[in-house]
């Protein structure tokens, strides 16, 4: 098992955002700024690694009929831990802006895709590495969209003001419609790049 390849697979070849287009809810909702996007991405990555490791470790003990139920409970357990840790240690402003999307990691498609297609068939360590790659790929996707929206919408990146003239801010980019437009444009670009290379579109 080539671990480097697994990580590259998650970030580039099978990127959950740009290639597989999964988990649109957090992707569109929490990307109003780069900081929110990265926090959400890392939170999801943490749950992904823990859950994949744990499920892979018990994969031979669980009968296949109840595998999904057990996975849901394990994931929900880790999400609860994450929720409590974030409430305790992160600034309240970040918790407030991520809000309901932290408990919603429980129903994140990426998690179940990785559990079903990788963690239930492979050894714990390999599953954790695969989860790390996918999580980083997801974080990268969130980060790109977050930076674009924050830059155009509030003229800043990571809260550092780059364009002080408020008349040139496109406020719509940090509002709901901007999320749809940004993701649509990004997928369109990737679509045409892949077409040019002879591959199939998304």
């Amino acid at each position, binding site marked *: 098992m080539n671990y480097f390849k697994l990580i590259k697979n998650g970030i580039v070849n099978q990127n959950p955002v740009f290639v597989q*287009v999964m988990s*649109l*809810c957090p*992707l*569109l*909702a929490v990307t109003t700024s780069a900081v929110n996007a990265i926090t959400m991405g890392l939170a999801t990555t943490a749950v992904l690694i823990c859950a994949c490791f744990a499920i892979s470790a018990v994969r031979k003990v669980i009968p296949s009929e109840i595998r999904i*139920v057990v996975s*849901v*409970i394990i994931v*929900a*357990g880790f*999400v*609860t831990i994450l*929720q*409590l840790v974030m409430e305790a240690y992160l600034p309240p402003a970040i918790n407030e802006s991520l809000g*309901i999307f932290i*408990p*919603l990691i*429980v*129903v994140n*498609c990426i998690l*179940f895709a990785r559990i079903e297609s990788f963690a239930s068939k492979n050894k714990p360590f390999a599953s954790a590495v695969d989860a790390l790659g996918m999580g980083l790929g997801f974080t990268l996707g969130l980060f790109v969209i977050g930076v674009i929206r924050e830059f155009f919408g509030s003229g800043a990146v990571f809260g550092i003001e780059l364009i002080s003239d408020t008349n040139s801010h496109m406020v*719509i980019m940090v*509002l*709901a*419609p*901007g*999320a*749809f*437009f940004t*993701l*649509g*444009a990004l*997928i*369109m*670009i990737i*679509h*045409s790049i892949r*077409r040019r290379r002879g591959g199939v*579109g*998304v």
Partner: protein
Amino acid sequence: MNLFLILIGAALINNYVLVQFLGMCPYFGVSKKSETALGMGVAVMFVMVVASTMTHLFHQHILVRFEIEYLQTIVFILIIASIVQFLEVFMKKNFPALYAMLGVYLPLITTNCVIFAVTIINVNNEYTLIEAIIESLGAGLGFTLAIVLLAGIREKYNNNPDIPEAFEGLPMALFAAGLMSIAFMGFQGII
């Protein structure tokens, strides 16, 4: 009056799909035809109302009573999963016509974040049982409205040769949803 405000707020002003970005997977996945979109919308609304009622009762009478609110995430997701399973069996036996219409969508709903979200929002806002039911009804109506409208738009432009290749599929749907979202922002002025 307060109940009416909650209903309008959940359906239009804070539309769960277009303003709060919940339930994106079925929104883009099942919106190619308006009939299937309507079926999905009604199924979501139905499960939402049942799930809100159950989770609300469970939260009030068990989690709060024994001071174990931190188990909320685990308990709610299990309640929703079992409700969906139960509804499937129950409808198949007692309402075959309704099952034939909604049955295919039911398994998809377990992992639908909009259901889970509405139950958490009910608890966070400290709604009473009636308010929680109205909120979930409004959320379901808003979801149905949004998905049926998007399906209508997608049917209109589908197979239109003027659409550039790169736009086909998801990007075009995302742009359509973005424009709809701008329209829904207009509702923010009505309260």
